[in-house]
């Protein structure tokens, strides 16, 4: 379990449990290609960072896995299935935007998640609400952006999903809140799940990644473990990122 990642370091090949497999993925918006013949696979029990300039590539990749974008070329499977209502039950998705019904209270969202997701742990979510001083009786639209983001992250991480897709979960938060969010992610992570997190705040988040993938100009530019990167390039991930994406 914990040794799943070590094969890359010790050179031993252990059978991986691949939860997501992507081959020859191509996505275009009109004439603009944002993902060009991408092939990747992801194992359970890892936290993977998806890095790249703010544009279309990494968000499109996440949306395709989440089942929000359906016109693409190539093969994407989650637990062996193409994106459909079954894979949606395995995936806990956190978009960049506030996707909760804003006219309703946070409690409404708790009810909603409990109703539609069998793997939702309501008690855990309620405890985390308390911990972060979030009032379930408060309407979403009256909460600050930071509070809304925390509510959403708590809801998403309170599911025992196989895949957590977090699209920029830390944007717009002060450092203390960011640390709190990272703690939530680490606390709720399990070795049966994959966490795929896209961010541009690399400095804060590097320490929680096993592996980072950098996507630029519609291709995978870097795909390696954090430790390997440090050992072979002598740079932190952020340092490498700056080098790879220097204008």
């Amino acid at each position, binding site marked *: 379990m914990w040794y799943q990642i070590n094969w890359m370091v010790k050179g031993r090949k252990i059978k991986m449990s691949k939860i997501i497999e992507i081959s020859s993925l191509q996505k275009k918006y009109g004439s603009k290609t944002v993902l060009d013949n991408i092939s990747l696979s992801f194992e359970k029990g890892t936290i993977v960072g998806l890095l790249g300039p703010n544009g279309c590539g990494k968000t499109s990749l996440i949306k395709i896995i989440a089942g929000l974008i359906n016109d693409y070329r190539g093969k994407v499977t989650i637990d062996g299935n193409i994106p459909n209502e079954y894979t949606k039950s395995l995936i806990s998705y956190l978009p960049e935007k506030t996707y909760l019904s804003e006219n309703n209270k946070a409690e409404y969202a708790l009810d909603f998640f409990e109703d539609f997701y069998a793997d939702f742990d309501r008690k855990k979510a309620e405890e985390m609400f308390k911990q972060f001083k979030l009032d379930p009786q408060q309407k979403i639209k009256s909460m600050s952006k930071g509070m809304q983001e925390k509510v959403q992250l708590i809801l998403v991480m309170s599911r025992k999903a196989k895949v957590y897709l977090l699209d920029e979960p830390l944007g717009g938060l002060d450092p203390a809140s960011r640390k709190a969010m990272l703690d939530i992610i*680490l606390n709720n992570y399990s070795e049966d799940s994959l966490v795929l997190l896209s961010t541009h705040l690399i400095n804060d988040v590097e*320490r929680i990644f096993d592996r980072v993938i950098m996507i630029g100009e519609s291709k995978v530019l870097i795909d390696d473990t*954090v430790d390997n990167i440090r050992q072979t390039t002598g740079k932190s991930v952020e340092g490498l990122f700056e080098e790879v994406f220097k204008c």
Partner: protein
Amino acid sequence: MSSDFSSNIPIYIQIMNDVKLKIVSGEWEAGKRLQSVRELAVEFSVNPNTMQRALSELERDELLYTERTSGRYVSQDQSKILKARDQMAEEYTDNYYNSMLKLGYKKEEIVYVVSNKLDGKREEDKNE
């Protein structure tokens, strides 16, 4: 936090050093039972696999040991802990020495500076 991590050293090694420090300084007493890997990962705010790797390395260095049914413990072998402490002390000393050399101090001057410092510390202790 992350700014504590210098860029070119793998994170697991830095975690190892942090843990070693806790053991060597006695903050984690000999024979103490460690929390689970996940709890430690949250405490140090790092990836659980990274934490696991650091702990495994420390086990190889015999500063930690695992009892299959009950978990991980700090070593009870004082000689190992003292040896680790000595190693860290030597590292710190090396670093200090090299830093002072860079400042332009000569060996005798360095001895003088250190000796003065220690005298000053002794005075402080007397006055407490």
